């Protein structure tokens, strides 16, 4: 009964639609850790993702279809196969990995230039803030040239997937934007 009502309710409010969200970023940035933090609220031990993980989760009454793609060089070319119908991209950056900020920036801009992603919102996690020497969110933002982005809702949030900090804040922002712009 309860289910019946809630689905009626969803339909009335137009919220039964599943939202596709991609989590991208270089290898070891913490994408898989964030995905499972979101789904089961715990830190899981991960292995480098060869391929992808996909989980469906409900967040604030919204059904999210979250795709975490592997970030290794050999897998990045395949990202584009999963761009279609994406409501938002979460781009995860390892804030301690200063050497590869340029690479991350390059991958980010290349991805955003794709036609299929023109309407998706962007949330950047400046991850691993719990580590000493991590760049701050604004430093990461600078490294990634985020200010250059035009015609796109974006935000950068400092996070630590291990400690569970920043993740919900980031997601709350994302959901709000999506609700506003796309539903």
């Amino acid at each position, binding site marked *: 009964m309860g289910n019946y009502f809630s689905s009626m309710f969803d339909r009335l409010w137009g919220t039964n*639609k*599943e939202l*596709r969200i991609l989590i991208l970023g270089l290898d070891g940035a913490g994408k898989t850790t964030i995905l499972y933090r979101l789904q089961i609220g715990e830190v899981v031990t991960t*292995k480098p*993702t*060869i*391929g*992808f*993980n*996909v989980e*469906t989760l409900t967040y604030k009454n919204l059904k999210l*279809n979250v*795709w975490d793609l*592997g970030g290794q060089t*050999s*897998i990045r070319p*395949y990202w584009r*196969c*999963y761009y*279609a*119908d994406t409501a938002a991209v979460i781009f995860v950056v390892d804030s301690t990995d200063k050497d590869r900020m340029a690479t991350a920036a390059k991958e980010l801009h290349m991805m955003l230039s794709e036609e299929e992603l023109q309407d998706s919102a962007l949330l950047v996690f400046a991850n691993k803030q719990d580590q000493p020497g991590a760049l701050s969110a604004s430093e990461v933002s600078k490294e990634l040239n985020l200010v250059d982005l035009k015609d796109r809702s974006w935000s950068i949030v400092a996070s630590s997937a291990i400690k569970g900090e920043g993740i919900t804040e980031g997601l709350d922002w994302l959901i709000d934007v999506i609700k506003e712009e796309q539903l």
Partner: protein
Amino acid sequence: MSTKTYKKSENQIAGELSDKMTIYQDCMNTFNELPVNAKRCRILISRLLRLLANGETFPESEATALFFSVSKLFQHQDDSLRQMVYLAIKELSSISDDVLMATSSIMKDIQNGSNLVKPNAIRSLTYVLDESTAFSAERLLKSAVVNKHPAVSSAALCTSYHLLPISETTIKRFSNEAQEAIVDLKQFPHSSMDNSEFYPNSTFISQYHALGLVYQLKKNDKMSLLKLVRQFAEANTLKNQLAKVQLVKLVNDLIHRDPQLFTQFQSLLDNWLTNKYESVQLETAKLITSFSINNSHLVSQELYISAINTLRSLLTVPRVTTRFAALRVLNRISINNPEKIMVCNPELESLINDSNRNISTYAITTLLKTGNAKNISSLVSTITKFIHEVSDDFKIIIIDAVRTLSLNFPQEWKSIVKFLIDVLKNGEGGLKFKNSIIEAIIDIVSFIPQSKELVLDNLCDFIEDCEYNEILVRVLHLLGKEGPFTSKPSLYVRHIYNRVVLENSIIRSAAVISLSKFALTKNDPTLKDSIVSLLRRIANDQDDEVRDRATIALELINASENKHSLVAEQLIQSKYYYDLNSLENKLTNYMSANDDSFKTPFDVSSIRKFTEDEVKAMKLKKKQQQAVGNNVENTKDAVVPGTKQTDNRIDNDTYQGANLQEHQEDLLETKYADELLSIEQFKEFGNLINSSKPIPLTEPEAEFVVHAVKHLFKDHVVFQFNVSNTLTNVVLDKVTVACSSEGDNQLEELFTLPIDRLLPNTEAACYVAYKKDEAFAMEGFINILHFTTRELDPETNEPFENDEGFDDEYEIDPIYLTAGDYVKSSFTGNFENTFAELPSEDVAVYNIKEDLSLQEITDKLILNTSCLPVSNTQFAPNDTNSHTLKLFGKSVFNGSKVALVVKMIKSSKGIALKAQGRGEDATLCADLVNNLM
């Protein structure tokens, strides 16, 4: 029907498959829909799989797009959909390179998936892992192997099996787990409800898979394989039928590595012959009978008879596949021991009427081999009826069997020729079938001379109404070749000329050549003028080729007026056949060398020539070896599940054509001869008269493998030693073989040619040359391989500068120049007459103490004398204690004939041989008779 319109898909199978592009589009749309509609996706995947199973493929870009769309279905948690997704991934993996992208998802399912999807996930690992990623699945796979659920465990075992060649190091660590899985009787978890006798709760198939994997892991370790057999043979731990069959195959493998082990397995095998599973009985009977082909002295008479009885009883079981399999085994036995399965004849005869055509055909071909002089004609009449009812493929099998039969029972040629002519004229069938009949007939004419006239007469009739050019041409050739030597050549001339009048230009051309061969016939000198006038008429033919051939033929016939010119004889009725391999080789060289724009004519004199009888002997010998060779091959049955059967000829057992290996041997022989003759020092020895087959002088797994070839010249002998260096980091310098005579110094050593440097993994030849004074010099030599070894610098692939190397030697087997080296096989259509006519005679008696079977002695005699076994005496029956072998050959020098009759009797003391030889050359005959062993 008429409303049906043309669809864009071209290769549609009667509208059964929907359009490939429609399915592709449907898949792409549906798989990418949100939310996923699991049911629709499942149906679409099954359509896609059906397309792929029917052999359709997609271009790579579409396959890739499909793969990614399918991969997106991982977001849906429905187990049935997931199973379909795995099936699709496995299929698409062969056309798209992107399967890698499924890895993480697969791993996750293996870890956390339900028991329904786990096996599918595990099995798909084979397609995504490679050498570098296999280790990442180690822990998962290992725990799946010991999983209690039989389907999960089986999947893991099979996957490990397939990954073994990809990542041996990883899978090697599963040995204990796999071993454990053999013993573990895993059952499906189930509710109490479905625990009924109709639904067995396990087939225990994982035992089979586990055994297969364990075998692969231990196959190089004889001791642990033996232990494995002991562990499972007695105790009743193996419940699965296939696992039991596997165990039989394991025993098969062991006894082929070490035949002496057979004795200790006898009682076990005897037991298995009455196992409750037909497949176990069958495999065991197959093992015993095929092992016995080369090891008959190790197999007890009783066991062999039990095996045959088992097979016999399997011929009457209801299961078609079992009947077929049993028949197949019997058929193999029939190839060289037909007498052993004669007890099955009643069952075989009733199988002729089996509704399964494979079985009835096999039954007939088997019967044709077990047939004896008494029942051949009745058999032939049975097949006359039968052959009109089966398809061409089966017809060809039967014709081939009849062809073998005719060679085995030459005295029965009349009924066989009648049969063949009948099917040739009246049988329905395509070119291949008719061609196989003609081939059988050509065999009969060339090996059974008495049949010649009857066959030719019938063929003349046949060509009056023959629809195939190819066959007509062959028949015309045969008429031209054999016709001039018959009693009434003019009859054939008439028939051939009719073709010139009535047929197309291809046939006319063939007829011209055929006609011209009659011009020189000695049997009817009056023919010449008629042929000339016929040819003159033909010389006005409208076709160029026909005209040209007629003109050349006339020219040659004119030339024959001149008694001293042999050109006509040589070209019109050639008595020689060139060695085609060497001819081809030399021609290619000639063409490519071409330094003086072909001013120097091509020289054919250096190419080996064979006489007709030699060619026949070679052909017959090949046929004989093939019959045996087939069997040797078949005994090496694979012990591994899933190994591919490579030979897919349906007529394997009767197929007589040249095989690749044989062809390669021929080529090798030619190559050796050409190499030898291109060496300056040997040029003055004159023509190469004969070369032996390569003789191994070391174990095949030795570090330096040596083969010897004996080359004979008129006054010289050359030993060629082919040395191959199997080491990877050592070069051999100055390689020679020192041969020291064992005795009577009939040969005088002239010089040796060393191999200057033998690099790793290469083969080269060194030579030792002798002068021989006696025509048939015989001598044995003890051989020592001498060389200097030097270590190789892996950087430069040259020996290290400062490495002096050190001299080493290595004893290899001795080599013998024997009487047999002066003989080559030759054919005679009537051995008894030939034997009686030969002038000088010699007799020798031998007593052999070694424990050899009559067959082994026979094989040895054939080898040692280089003669052709005739009248089908190359097979020694092993149910009696005596055998007579008839051998025929010719001197390699002048072609003088020798014939041998060797009687052998086996008793408890050994084997007694009495050899009676007759020949044109007394010395050769005596040498041969006195040096048989």
